[in-house]
């Protein structure tokens, strides 16, 4: 499986996730949340930032069901779902992830066609702190 290849801007997200917290970057001055993380605020140009704890709740904005050809680790689990979840706290922040049966479950732990646009989900954290989503 591919691990996130992170960068300076993204690293805090993954560090918080490893602790079981879903946090998003927000401006330290005007407090506008933004995603993906970046060095300064596109709204007020401040370089100050904070990492805001979210409720971890959201709704499925879209989803796909990939089939092979895929990288070997993913092909073994295909077909699986990938969901894009709109966060309840910050509607413009949508996180890609997988809808799974429970924390740490594989990508194909639910019927790949179980996601529905608009369905409520909440975050759990799998192995290594990777955020996953379970039906709310």
């Amino acid at each position, binding site marked *: 499986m591919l691990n*996130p*290849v992170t960068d300076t801007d993204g690293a805090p997200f993954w560090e918080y996730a490893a602790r079981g917290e879903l946090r998003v970057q927000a401006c330290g001055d005007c407090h506008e949340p933004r995603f993906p993380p970046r060095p300064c605020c596109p709204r007020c140009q401040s370089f100050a930032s904070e990492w805001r704890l979210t409720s971890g709740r959201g709704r499925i*904005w879209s*989803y796909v069901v990939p089939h092979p050809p*895929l990288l070997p680790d*993913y092909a073994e689990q295909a077909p699986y779902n990938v969901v894009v979840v709109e966060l309840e706290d910050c509607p413009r922040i949508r996180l890609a*992830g997988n809808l799974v049966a429970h924390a740490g479950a594989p990508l194909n732990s639910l019927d790949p066609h179980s996601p529905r646009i608009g369905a409520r989900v909440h975050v759990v954290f799998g192995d290594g702190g990777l955020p996953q989503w379970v039906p709310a």
Partner: protein
Amino acid sequence: MAVAASGLKDATAIVGIGQTSFARHLPEDEKTLACRAVLAALEDAGIAPGEVDGLASYTMEETDEVELAKAVGFGDLTFFSKVGYGGGGSCATVAHLAAAIAAGQAGVGVAWRSRKRGSGPRPWTNTAVQLPTPAQWTRPFGLLRPVDEIAVLARRYMHEYGATRDHLFNVALACRNRANQNPAAVMYERPLTREMYMTSRWISEPLCLFDNCLETDGALACVLVSKERARDCRTRPVYVHSAAQGLPAQHHGMVNYWNDDPLTGPAWTAARHLWKHADFTPQDVDVAQIYDAFSVLIPLSLEGYGFCGRGEGGAFTEQGALEIGGRLPLNTGGGGLSEAYVHGFNLINEGVKQLRGTSTAQVPGAATCLVTAGEGVPTSALLLRS
């Protein structure tokens, strides 16, 4: 009151086009294919290689200017440019040459793309070049390929507006029907039926095999000169009427899920600039070559470029609108879906053929053509006229 001059409008013309054959596997390497396509385009124009002084291609092009120039015998080059974002750069290569020629930075410009995407590896299988942003937010979860990233937008689009798989089939069918008229097309002898489409294997639901472009080896090139010089060339000039690139504010590339309105992509930005500088409107376009790496890019682009309203792109494809004789004949050489996938360069050359009156699926009297580059990624577009 002074009106800002439109410096590009009809100032330059495409006077030569060239291409290699297209196939899943060609024996020659990319550099050789590039040379063949470029020399064919110059021969078509009646311009000697030594007269070329401007070049433009894609950042993903593997044959660099130095190699191409010394192989085919270009003169001293004074302008060379490469455009990023894969297929989003196709029309921008011509746009950069048009700007350079109109500004006096070059006299004879060549744009080209050579790619062995059929023989070569699929780019997404190379995990070593996985970019940290935005791939860290998508790839670990199994959004691995461009088709997965676009399928996310396709699903949302179908959900919001009621577009259907039949609408996507209309796109795939129009391209295949045109390929069936084009002996150079990879799918020349391979008709497509609705049953084949509806029962084909999934690649990334809701997109199936026939929603995906081909994987092709091939190369294409075109030659651009000033409108004055164009009168002396051996072909009928096809004028660059308007040209634009488009990178919208707060855009995120193909994984454009993180702004207010992910379904209005770069096409909308390019379109605003394109039409602002044009003497005609979408209603006046006779034929369109719209980038079709994936079928769903067509309805999204039809909306972006103003052929229909928001959410109407699916319905626009009904009743043969994209076929010859329809409202907007589409991808008349077969496009990326059925002629060849060479990062959209075949769409540029097909636009030129239509306006010369030499297409294998000629739209009678075609005088205006829209050509677009990849939608979803930072894009570009051209309005061509005869």
